[in-house]
């Protein structure tokens, strides 16, 4: 941790207990944020990106202690946040500010925007009403509104104007850290650019450090100095923005980058969208959390599948593990699609083909050994012996990605990523080839 570090987050964890019954017995936990660490230096903008539901906003709220974190250490300007005295906590509140995605819900409809912006000042003891008003009016001018807007009400303003007011409110107590939680997601593209430009200008004016939370890679690229990519409560890649964008080291980052809108129409075809949805954070997948959707899962050393086929086999495995593979439904579907008259008439072979088709697995694998294992497993699935089939597949198609959680480690590109592709130095060539394969495929 260098001297100019303003905020240091270490192993921040926020779990929400799922309780049941009268005594609120804990039956599970939603692991919204599961041990993330990062630093923000003075005057720096750190971007926290990820799909919605990955825990970005929870991370922001916990690090500002708007919700008590389950675990982890937060240091603000060297002081541990959490066990402060009331005065210290108040100081911390004054030195941090936050703006939100929804500009409408951000304002008390019964207060004029001037009163809303003045609220932090009053809370921190600035009793002189005239001074408060003059400071707020200056602040409103600073964010590109006029002093006359003091007496207007939130419903009279547009979304972009409200977001400007939100900035004024967050910055009126002259904070050092601004947390911007999806500040432009609710705005039109033209307004989005204005607000981002305003944030950058205010950063220079006030010497702010900013934690910018967004699901939009292009916003992060435009504004942030460094970026941390979150997936399902964990940081999977972290580094300077140019490095991460130029040479992403985690398949998830690559997928996010690929989903960015490309201005060049000739390159549109390359977009590799992520399949599936983010798994339930109450029951995260074992091993690497991204392996259920990862297009670059490491193959067992004995086989050499086409990566897409391997993904299909893995999907089948995961469906077995989660017991989401429903042969009855498959039968019904075959009937409705006209492949059979009646569900009972469908033969085992037909069902096996249907399962293969559902998971994009070819009718016959190139590797004879693999084909043997797969057909045996499929036969067991059709026979209803799901546990045996699962075990058989697990045994023969083992991969480190399903077994071990990768640590956030230095990669050869110079920044950190949490991916098994970077585990062994000697295998870096494999990592390179798989990752580039993903980009081209």
């Amino acid at each position, binding site marked *: 941790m260098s001297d100019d570090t303003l905020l240091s987050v270490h192993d921040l964890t926020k779990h929400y207990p799922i309780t049941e019954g009268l005594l609120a017995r804990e039956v599970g936990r939603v692991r919204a944020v599961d041990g993330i660490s990062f630093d923000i230096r003075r005057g720096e903008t750190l971007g926290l990106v990820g799909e919605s539901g990955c825990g970005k906003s929870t991370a922001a*709220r916990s690090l500002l202690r*708007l919700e008590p974190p389950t675990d982890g250490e937060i240091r603000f300007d060297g002081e541990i946040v959490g066990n402060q005295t009331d005065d210290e906590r108040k*100081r911390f509140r004054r030195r941090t*500010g936050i703006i939100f995605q929804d500009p409408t819900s951000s304002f*008390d409809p019964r207060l004029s925007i001037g009163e*809303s912006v003045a609220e932090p000042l009053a*809370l921190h003891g600035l009793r002189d009403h005239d001074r408060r008003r003059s400071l707020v009016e200056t602040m409103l001018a600073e964010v590109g509104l006029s002093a006359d807007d003091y007496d207007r009400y939130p419903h009279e303003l547009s979304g972009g104007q409200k977001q400007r007011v939100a900035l004024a409110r967050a910055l009126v107590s002259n904070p050092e850290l601004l947390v911007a939680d999806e500040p432009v997601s609710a705005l039109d593209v033209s307004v989005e650019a204005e607000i981002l430009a305003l944030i950058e200008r205010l950063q220079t*004016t006030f010497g702010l450090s900013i934690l910018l939370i967004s699901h939009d890679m292009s916003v992060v690229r435009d504004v942030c100095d460094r970026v941390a990519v979150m997936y399902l409560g964990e940081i999977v890649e972290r580094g300077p923005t140019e490095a991460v964008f130029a040479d992403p080291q985690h398949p998830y980052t690559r997928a996010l980058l690929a989903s960015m809108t490309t201005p060049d129409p000739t390159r549109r075809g390359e977009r590799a969208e992520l399949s599936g949805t983010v798994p339930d954070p109450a029951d995260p997948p074992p091993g690497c959390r991204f392996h259920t959707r990862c297009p670059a899962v490491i193959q067992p050393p004995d086989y050499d599948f086409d990566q897409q086929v391997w993904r299909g086999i893995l999907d089948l495995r995961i469906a077995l593990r989660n017991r989401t593979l429903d042969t009855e439904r498959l039968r019904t579907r075959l009937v409705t699609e006209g492949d059979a008259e009646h569900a009972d008439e469908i033969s085992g072979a037909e069902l096996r083909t249907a399962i293969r088709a559902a998971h994009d697995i070819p009718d016959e694998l190139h590797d004879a050994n693999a084909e043997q294992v797969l057909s045996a497993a499929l036969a067991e699935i059709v026979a209803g012996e799901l546990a045996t089939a699962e075990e058989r597949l697990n045994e023969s198609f083992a991969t480190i990605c399903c077994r071990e959680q990768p640590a956030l480690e230095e990669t050869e590109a110079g920044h950190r990523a949490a991916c098994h592709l970077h585990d062994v130095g000697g295998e870096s060539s494999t990592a390179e080839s798989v990752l580039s394969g993903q980009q081209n495929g």
Partner: protein
Amino acid sequence: MAVDSDASIDAQFDAIDWEELGEERPVVGRRTGGFLVALGLLALLFLYDRFTGYDLSIGAWYAPSRLDWLFVLSLVVFAFAIVVPAVRNRDRTMQYWRRFRRNRLAVACAAYLAVFFVLGTASLLVLDRPTTNIQYAKQPALFATVEAGTVAINCAGDVTGTAVQQYCHGSLQFPFGTNSVGQSVLELVVAGMGVSLLVALVTSMLMVPIATAVGTVAGYFGGWVDDVLMRYVDIQQTVPAFLVYIVLGFVFGQSLFLIVLVFGLLSWGGVARLVRSEVTQRREELYITAAESAGASRLQIIRRHILPNVSSTVLTATTRQIPLLILTEAAISFIVVLGDENVPSWGQMLTDLNMELWWVWAFPLAFLVITVFSFSVVGDALRDTLDPRGNA
């Protein structure tokens, strides 16, 4: 624009020594101050009346009774809780009024309620009680007739008809006629307004703070606090206040005082429940989080953001509760004779069900219906006005 202000905002920030400023001290606003002064004055008057030989001549009934004190207190509360804020936020009041005005029926009902309020207050504080006047007993209402000589011994209006069959016509002296002891029905109706107004205001004064406090605490803090408070409300709502009143009436004697006390203290459950659900919604709003992140304490958040935003819910819910209470009071007066202060309740006037002297019960009944109806309509219209989300 930015270049000019950069210097000034920095200068302004530099001038603030945050560490010196310290805590926000709770400032007593002018409204709160005025309210406290008014309460203090009222308390002084009460003590003066209580502990000296002099009787103050407020209250039109006997010497100021406990009901009069309660009523004056609720007037003060009403003035500072409703009238003062409405006048202070004139812009918002006008905005509400423009929305309210669209509902013509509600405007008419509100106008009636204004008259009801003025007459009721006058009847409680200024006007004398209707006096008996045997000489002019059983006078007919305006445009009605009654047999003169036999039913109406004397007639205040014109007498027509043959020498054998004479009819007494209604007169402007007794527009609503008189009852069998010669009390003017008009005066009785106005006195009844006083009783209904007292029921409405005093029970509201009891209900509003309790419901707001319970609903806010339950909604804002949630968890077991919420569970305990709401289970209590469940229990309270399963025991009818009416039953409690009957039982307590046997113990302490039937009285209007007991009615307002029991119904005021036991009818706030529904309002509290509404407040609670409103608060649980508001609690999730981002401006609450923004205030927290700016350093506001829970109490400050409740005071600044929660209470002002649930005030319209409280107002609406209470207004809709009032007609029920007025009806209940009328029903109790209809069934039993209230012991204290010989209450001239509309319900009591309905006991005089005489078809020949129909005006004796018809006018009180009409006004009871109009009053209850007006409160309901205005309550509905208020909900539409203050909470436009409902009809969106």
